[in-house]
């Protein structure tokens, strides 16, 4: 293989009249973990499935390990590990049975017995897939993605609907892949997850790349010049604004934004106003902004630019972006 593990150049994917991906370009190298972050219908799964060879680009070029996913598909399958968003396993098969089956497809597979232990299913060997919990299925799917010792791994929503233990385990496996020099492309609509797992985040929405970079950089890209806090709903923001001398808005019920830099004097004035009005303070946050805010800001701006951009959901089953507020 020469150069990047994943290379996407000017990718456009169209379903009939609907534009799912528009002029998307990015690359990822060996040992790098890249997260595609975006709401449902953003085009994350379409992008991954084009790289896996399930979909043909309408325009543009994609290469995985230097191979064309469709023309060189047989060779490609020896280098990639795939975790679909859901399903993918015989409903009556047992964990070790399916890992052994998949191991037989590859030249130099992982040891199935060790792998089933590694993903924490060593005590679930007699349970068929259909009786495994959502988290157990995710872990088994991960094992199947890893059994062939792939160079490039695609994980579509690997931590969706998973319990905290499973989440931890998947994080650990992913960072071990990085250490082994494997390239990982994962999709998520969970900002927390992208921030924790990825070396680089690509924010996409409506098929277009909005921003990319390491999570920390993305977060500091937009200077934060406000104070946010939570308290009970329906505070008199006009009175508060008069008292503080800057504008205050209630962005959503119980969440307020004070539009000025968090000078100590202003923070003191705010808390004293709240004290005077006998209002208990919830979160108070200044300076550091979360990836979620970057994300919301970017996607809202994008939709203002382009309000009637039709998009087709990737999958019939839709999930919403779960607001997972970070506490400071």
């Amino acid at each position, binding site marked *: 293989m020469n150069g990047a593990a994943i290379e996407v150049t000017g990718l456009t994917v169209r379903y009939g009249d609907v534009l799912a991906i528009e002029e998307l370009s990015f690359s990822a190298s060996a040992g790098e973990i890249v997260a595609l972050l975006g709401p449902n219908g953003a085009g994350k799964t379409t992008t991954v499935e084009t790289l896996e060879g*399930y979909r043909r680009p309408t325009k543009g070029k994609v290469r995985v390990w230097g191979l064309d996913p469709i023309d060189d598909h047989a060779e490609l*399958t020896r280098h990639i590990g795939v975790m679909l968003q859901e399903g*993918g*396993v015989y409903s*009556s098969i047992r964990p070790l049975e*399916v890992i052994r089956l998949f191991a*037989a*497809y590859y030249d130099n597979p992982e040891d199935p017995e060790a792998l089933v232990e590694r993903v924490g299913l060593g005590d679930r060997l007699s349970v068929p897939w259909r009786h495994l919990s959502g988290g157990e299925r995710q872990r088994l799917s991960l094992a199947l993605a890893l059994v*062939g010792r792939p160079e490039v791994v695609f994980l579509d929503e690997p931590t969706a609907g998973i319990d905290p233990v499973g989440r931890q385990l998947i994080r650990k496996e992913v960072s071990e892949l990085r250490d082994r020099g494997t390239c990982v492309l994962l999709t998520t609509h969970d900002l927390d997850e992208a921030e924790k797992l990825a070396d680089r985040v690509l924010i996409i929405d409506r098929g277009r790349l909005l921003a990319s970079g390491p999570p920390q950089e993305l977060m500091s890209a937009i200077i934060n010049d406000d104070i946010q806090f939570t308290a009970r709903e329906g505070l008199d923001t006009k009175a508060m604004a008069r008292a503080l001398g800057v504008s205050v808005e209630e962005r959503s019920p119980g969440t307020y934004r004070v539009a000025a830099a968090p000078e100590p004097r202003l923070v003191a004035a705010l808390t004293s106003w709240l004290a005077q009005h006998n209002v208990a303070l919830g979160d108070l946050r200044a300076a550091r902004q979360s990836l979620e805010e970057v994300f919301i800001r970017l996607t809202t701006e994008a939709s203002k630019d382009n309000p009637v951009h039709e998009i087709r959901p990737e999958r019939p089953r839709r999930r919403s972006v779960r607001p997972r507020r970070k506490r400071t």
Partner: protein
Amino acid sequence: MRKIRPYLAQTATELRLSLRQGEQMLVSLGIPLLLLVFFSLVDVLPKPAGVEKPVDFLAPGILALAVMSTSMVSLGIGTGFERHYHVLKRLGATPLGRPRLIAAKLTVVLVIEALQFALIILAAVALGWHPSGRATLAVPAIIAGTAAFAGIGLLMAGTLRGTVTLALANALYILLLLLGGMIVPLDKLPGPVQITAELLPAAALSQIMASAFDYGTSVPANTWAVLVAWAFGAPLLAAATFRWD
């Protein structure tokens, strides 16, 4: 197809999963054996002219039914659900490859058919069946019948939703059982129905099986033509329309 190990693992796994599936085994083994034993002992069904014992008429037809149940019903329903649960899609991203997957599925069908034949023939002989005649004729008929019914099963599996395939495969199974000359002789069907039935693969297969085990007479060429047409047409149509995802 460079290597045989993935094919062997695939075949062994799919065979194990099939044998473990109670409802599949009921259709493949339970129902044919039940029909054979029941109607051999309870002589209520009409028999074709010249046949004395019910088992002499039933045994070849039940063998044809076994082919239909495994290659159309079990294969169709199983593959339909594998498609529904994205198993086929997931396998598409492995080095297994389609040729080995299809070869494995056909092997499983043939192995289960062999098992069915062993049990059905054993039961039929115990019920007093004396097969005679050109049993070698049965081999090409079984192969053609398997191809025809597998084609029909995969045509449904590759185009319809899993649950629709389940319902339709079972409905076809009953319909073709009744129109297939397996428990009701074709000449007892009303004229137009009989003409239609003779164009379907079930009747063609059962007629050839009957002739092979020699209760009947020689098989008209057009019966073979019907079976061979289905044996090529149905798999080709299935291949042309199959959606893996």
